[in-house]
């Protein structure tokens, strides 16, 4: 098997793999929302309510609020 052929196969399978991954991701996005596990649309709020005093959409547990 020469390098060109190898390249062809690698290309084909990796593309397939990534396409599957992408479809998996799409399914995941819509399924988890339907099942009520996640609400992706709420993240859009991050742009609208972005004052430093606004409450985060989800708190980051790693930053302690009282560290100052």
């Amino acid at each position: 098997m020469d390098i060109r052929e190898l390249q062809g196969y690698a290309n084909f399978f990796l593309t397939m793999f990534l396409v599957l991954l992408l479809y998996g991701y799409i399914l995941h996005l819509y399924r988890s929302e339907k099942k009520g596990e996640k609400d992706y649309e709420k993240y859009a709020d991050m742009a609208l309510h972005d004052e430093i005093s606004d409450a985060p959409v989800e708190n980051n547990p790693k930053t302690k609020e009282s560290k100052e």
Partner: protein
Amino acid sequence: MQSNAAFEYDYSIAKLFTYTTILFGILGMIIGTLIAAQLAFPELNYMFGEYGTFSRLRPVHTTVVIFGFTLSGVFATFYYVAQRVLKVSMAESNLLMTVGKIHFWLYFVGALLATVSLVLGFSQGKEYAQYEWPIDIVIVIVWLLWGVSIFGLIGIRREKSLYISLWYYIACFIGIAMLYLFNNMAVPTALVSGYGNIMHSVSMYSGTNDALVQWWWGHNAVAFVFTVPIIAIIYYFLPKESGQAIYSYKLSLLSFWGLMFVYLWAGSHHLLYSPVPDWMQTMGSIFSIVLILPSWGSAINMLLTMKGEWNQLTDNPLIKFMVLASTFYMLSTLEGPIQAIKSVNAIAHFTDWIPGHVHDGTLGWVAFTIMAGIFHMTPRMFKREIYSKSLMETQFWLQTLAVVLYFTSMWIAGITQGMMWRAVDEYGNLMYSFIDTVTVLHPYYAIRALSGVLYLSGFLIFAYNIYKTITSSKRLTEEPQFKTPMA
């Protein structure tokens, strides 16, 4: 929560980059207009001796608008947006403030040196990668500093999830880092041989390999400078200015991964009919067409964000800028794949249709988005309302007309020239000598130069408007949440 109140967002770095956006914008567009005019009126080549010819100035134009104007705009908006969507102030970390300042000053000095080096003729000879190795090293450091800022801010964030704009900024950071490093691999000749000019280097790759790497870079520089971070900008400013949440956040996530995956494959469409392997050219074509999907995914998502609120388009010139930008994004992401179809490419390649395509992207999409971002940020950073709404309107129409003139004239010029090169008479002999195909372009070159003048005038109006806003417009007592106040 209460402790947050002690902090305000710190815009000092964003302000600095806003100034350089305008400065490099003016410089890059003046040179662009000049070289456009030189093609119509070649006498204009001799204004600055050896330093003023079309060929010497063309890379100065491209690099100043790419690395000067656009990147400044990207940095300015980043230092503004990132704090806000992460809900953390730069001022909370002395380290980040320092890094930000060094980032700016090194960038600014580096950009000036880089520009001078090109005018003097130090060039690697690769398009959009002309800078010689010492300048490249400065650029890499500047880039790493930006990385520190990105991940530093993320490290101290209050918001757990990253807003979609940040995804795009991060992708820009990673993509350019990878591409720039690989494409600029070169060996400094003076260090190896002990002779000659210290600035000089030779590429690590030769011939066809070099071409592949170059267009892998060339195409994806477009992806990661002119597309990815600009999407980041509009995904923040359009919702924020209009008060409308993104139409579908899920669609924005999907388009992101789609774009990342597909874009990199498309680079070889710059090398159709060249000696690079056939299957690679075909891949380039196919993926270029698939690329329409994620691109339009983003564009439609932006336009639909305005659903039910189209009246804002008439009330608010800022929305007008961004909606037009999204539309031009759709246009150029449709046009690009069309040019990548092999039979179309056979005609379009090497002609003026290509610069035409580039400019409806850059003038219509990139610059409009960046200017809209600056219009939105300035009143908030300086706590003053926009100086003049009517100037904004004037600018908008001037520049829209300019873009339309630009791409229509270049469409016609490109297709005319492409067809003339291949035209044969009944005996199969070429019908036109090369110079015939040059003289026929004169009117289109003149129209393009005119469009440059119009666009530049619009940009000067923009600069004036911002200057007046900063210095003498009415003060704001509190920060507007959505629509930008203007007089």
